């Protein structure tokens, strides 16, 4: 199958400059992006070996001697393309704060405890149907210095590859009904309401495991359409 990547689909993304998000002010290009045709360089992308993902890398609750504190959760879904087709063998990497909203990163020094049993990093590869699954704990909200009383809604960072280098996506998965949404300039940097909703996971009772873990579903839609769609009518 030959894929095409219409640049129009990029309208779902935030603009580089989103002044409410202060860090974007000096890091967004002033000059317009230059259009060009996709060549083989843009249309191809990395393929990973089996050594990239080790068994257990998708379970963030079993990386240390004990179990991390917090609400254990399952996060799962499909990586799909713009035609709704599953994207197989796509690398999905995640990183997140612990249940208190603290990252292990040395630059996160806000007064919440680290958890010796939680690093907060994981990775997996989507299967033949595009399905992926992680076990982790629900991250906490945390304060940041963007403006007075600024708090990030709880989120999990995701990094996804897909069919080509231009399908590369780094995003954040949020949790349903977070009261911090209206106040978060990063969430609201996505101009379209429907597009913002695509960053919010849904509670999945059907796949919640009794006595063990709540489940959230998060489908990730990457760029890419079939260049020669089948005529069905």
């Amino acid at each position, binding site marked *: 199958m030959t894929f095409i990547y219409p640049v129009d689909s990029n309208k*779902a993304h935030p603009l580089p400059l989103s002044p409410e998000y202060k860090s974007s002010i000096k890091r967004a290009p002033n000059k317009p992006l230059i259009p060009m045709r996709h060549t083989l360089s843009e249309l191809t992308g*990395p*393929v990973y070996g089996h050594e990239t993902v080790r068994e257990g890398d998708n379970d963030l609750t079993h990386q240390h001697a004990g179990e991390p504190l917090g609400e254990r959760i399952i996060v799962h879904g499909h990586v799909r393309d713009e035609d*709704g087709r599953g994207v197989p063998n796509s690398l999905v990497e995640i990183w997140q704060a612990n249940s208190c909203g603290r990252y292990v990163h040395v630059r996160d020094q806000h007064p919440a405890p680290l958890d010796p049993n939680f*690093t907060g990093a994981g990775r997996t590869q989507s299967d033949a149907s595009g399905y992926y699954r992680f076990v982790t704990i629900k991250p906490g909200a945390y304060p940041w210095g963007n403006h007075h009383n600024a708090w990030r809604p709880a989120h999990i960072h995701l990094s996804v590859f897909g069919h080509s280098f231009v399908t590369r996506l*780094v995003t954040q998965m949020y949790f349903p009904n977070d009261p911090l949404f209206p106040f978060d300039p990063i969430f609201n940097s996505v101009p379209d309401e429907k597009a913002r909703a695509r960053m919010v996971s849904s509670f999945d009772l059907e796949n919640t495991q009794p006595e063990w873990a709540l489940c959230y579903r998060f*489908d990730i*839609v990457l760029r890419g359409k079939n260049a020669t769609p089948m005529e069905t009518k």
Partner: protein
Amino acid sequence: MQDNEKDNGITPSQTVGPFFKYGLTPNGEYAWNDAFTNSTLTPDVSGDRVRIEGRVFDGDGVAVPDCMLEIWQADAQGRFADPQDKRALPNASFRGFARCGTDKDGHYSFETIKPGVVPDPDGKPQAPHILLAVFGRGMLRHLYTRIYFSDEAGNAADPVLAVVPTERRATLIAVREAGKLVYRLDLRLQGEDETVFFDV
């Protein structure tokens, strides 16, 4: 019914933020292993081994210590390690992908091989180049640019450089250090000598 059965738009980008290092570029400093390093080199790879290095600056000329850079490139024969490149099998273990976080002074470096010539959509040769994606705190979506090489005569006829205004082309061309296979390219996210970024 899944939400995206009603709405098949793509998932929007969000910033990589300031705290990605322990997950994406741990480099021995955190309790997590690296999926990728700043090198594409494999024992079987052929071609000229080169180092590409530089610094990343913001609109005030201040070094950016929390960028992540990723490269994607062909092998020395111009073939991509991707089944979508139908022409030929590349060096068996060469993948053509690498990742690097900037340090506290905004430095990055990649160890790789100089790629070969890759055709454009009309079959015309492109000068050797590497795709570069730039992620960082304050960047709501990554930016795409290209790295060309100052010692390549083919730059003059490259169809992508040709769409870039003449006075801005230098921002895409890594400059070879005298006598070494080391190339230098600084990235400027904003301002007078702003790096050319592509709408791809």
